């Protein structure tokens, strides 16, 4: 996260490859389910043996024996509706919820976040020198109205995307944050309104940042967990 600061986002998980290296983020929506983005995974049938999620720690690479750290193998990947670019990861066992690990709420179906709502992104990705890259960083971004964003992007905005407004000081997601949450506070609960998607540039000051609009796919998320 560029322009963020160390913070607490207990639903943000680190996805680790077989070498134990962080490569993408995700959000814990149920004890055994994480939502992330398709871009991070080789295929919808990928054999993820040896891949894990790490939760409960603010550190990107905690020292062995960190009492709060949970590492849980990934059992399976399920790809979302084709245009969604979402994936769900089933964990080999449920995460233990505590002060450091919590579930993020899913939005109501097709819910539209009001423009101006201030939301948070979180991740262990690149900070471009703006913060400590060894810990979880959090940054706040205001949601932009769909029409206004579409105009700024000259009509290229898709319905399944959600925008946050560009800030004068560069603030935004960067490499390593992909798949992580855009969490917005609604009715006193943090809700997964967006998923961070890869972009060509980090924290642009002249253009809105795009996220996958989760509310359009929340029925699919529930169906996958149910079935």
């Amino acid at each position, binding site marked *: 996260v560029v322009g963020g600061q160390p913070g607490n986002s207990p639903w943000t998980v680190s996805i680790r*490859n077989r070498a134990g290296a962080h490569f993408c983020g995700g959000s814990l929506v149920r004890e055994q389910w994480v939502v992330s983005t398709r871009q991070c995974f080789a295929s919808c049938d990928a054999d993820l043996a040896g891949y894990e999620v790490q939760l409960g720690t603010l550190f990107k690479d905690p020292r062995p024996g960190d009492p709060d750290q949970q590492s849980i193998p990934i059992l399976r990947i399920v790809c979302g509706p084709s245009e969604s670019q979402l994936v769900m990861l089933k964990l080999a066992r449920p995460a233990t919820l505590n002060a450091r690990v919590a579930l993020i709420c899913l939005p109501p179906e097709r819910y539209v976040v009001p423009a101006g709502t201030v939301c948070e992104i979180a991740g262990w990705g690149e900070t471009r020198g703006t913060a400590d890259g060894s810990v979880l960083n959090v940054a706040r971004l205001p949601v932009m109205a769909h029409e206004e964003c579409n105009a700024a992007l000259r009509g290229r905005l898709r319905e399944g995307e959600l925008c946050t407004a560009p800030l004068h000081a560069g603030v935004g997601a960067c*490499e390593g944050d992909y798949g992580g949450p855009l969490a917005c506070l609604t009715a006193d609960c943090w809700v997964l309104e967006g998923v961070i998607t890869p972009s060509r540039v980090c924290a642009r000051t002249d253009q809105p940042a795009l996220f996958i609009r989760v509310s359009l796919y929340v029925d699919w998320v529930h169906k996958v967990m149910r079935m």
Partner: protein
Amino acid sequence: HRSPLNDFQRLRATELLPVPAEPPVPAERGPAELCARRCAASLPCRAFHHDRQSQLCQLLPWTQHSPHVRLQRNIHYDLYQKKEFLRDCIVGDGTSYRGTRDTTERGLRCQPWRATTPHDHRFLPSPRNGLEENFCRNPDRDKRGPWCYTVDPNTRHQSCGIKQCEDAVCMTCNGEDYRGSVDHTESGIECQRWDLQHPHTHPYHPHKYPDKGLDDNYCRNPDGSERPWCYTTDPGQERGYCRIRLCKKRPRALNVTTGCFRGKGEGYRGRVNVTVSGIPCQRWDAQAPHQHLFVPEKYPCKDLRENYCRNPDGSEAPWCFTARPTVRVAFCFHIRRCPDELGAEGEPPAPTRGVPAGCQPGASAPCLASDCYHGHGERYRGHVSKTRKGITCQPWAAQAPHVPQISPATHPEAHLEENYCRNPDNDSHGPWCYTMDPRTPFDYCAIKPCLARPQLAPTLPADAVAFERCGQRDERLQLKGR
């Protein structure tokens, strides 16, 4: 420090059964290494089962190449078979070869060793010398390897031409796909089994890398090294390269892409050369600011040109070393993935085609179009019966491989015929089905909507929303974190 298991080849979750069935072989308790030691010391023993749960082992006088046996899946058993009975290549002069090759290098059939016609000879079978049937053997340590007497009266004996293991299977590129049976380094040290952590501990657990072929103690290249290698049984030398012949044939062309990448992007040959945060990539032929082993000349198939994002080591996606000393590598996830190439059964989806009148939203007649759907596709009555990944749909009335929550009985109005894609629960993402893949309970079908439709709803008032058991955090930790 060598393990007695090094003489054995393991098949996980497999049992070897005689046909017809015989009374079970008595079992003894012990870890697999102890079973291996017992089997190695026993002349008739050629293989053993090891039950991982109960730690019981059964020594067996046959292998999968013996007559009247069959392999059967058994999740409790691992089957270990002596390598010398399974290999179709030789080590050294091949005196230990116990395979089943029974023709010579010129195609002549071998004479059984117990026979003395057409050629009389002195190499008669005994329990110890391995002269079985008419299989090629090397009882006199012939330098040309295993041989046999032939059934041709004019040719007394001939070499069988069995290749050295180093030459039997060649490798392409850097040998990532090598699955041959060389199990020594080029300096002659025996390899450590990948499934053991001694004498060297290592991260390459075979179950973590199912696609890397980390079988037994064979040379492999799971990490994008220059060529296949192994950990050694010498505590003083952690790992060593293996000598394996390079194939003369050109390797098959990768699925090359330039504007996007597929899978892990090993075939990406585009020109993106900067990380998403704007750091230029380091040239592959440079060793500064980061020293590395991915020298272009040593990776001829990887196209390590200039400073372009590439994936020479099977990582998640194309990547590069960066020009910033503090950031060694960065994934190039900002290169987009190529769209999945999926189409409906028969014809490709064509949203712009003419639509039968019955398909119009609100029409009373059922929609019979099979090439696209209206609305959510709840009135779709076409015959597409495969998912977007091409998996065959499970019949709606079937109970396997998935026990359905929705069936013709629960949704009699939904026209759940055969295994055709339908949308009985008004899923907003279109027709779907249960699938015949046990790992995929349901998936959407390869049918597209006939028209794009607006999906966004007006903003709900915040007080109309309620959540349970989620979205709460200890705000004090936030401050503490800072």
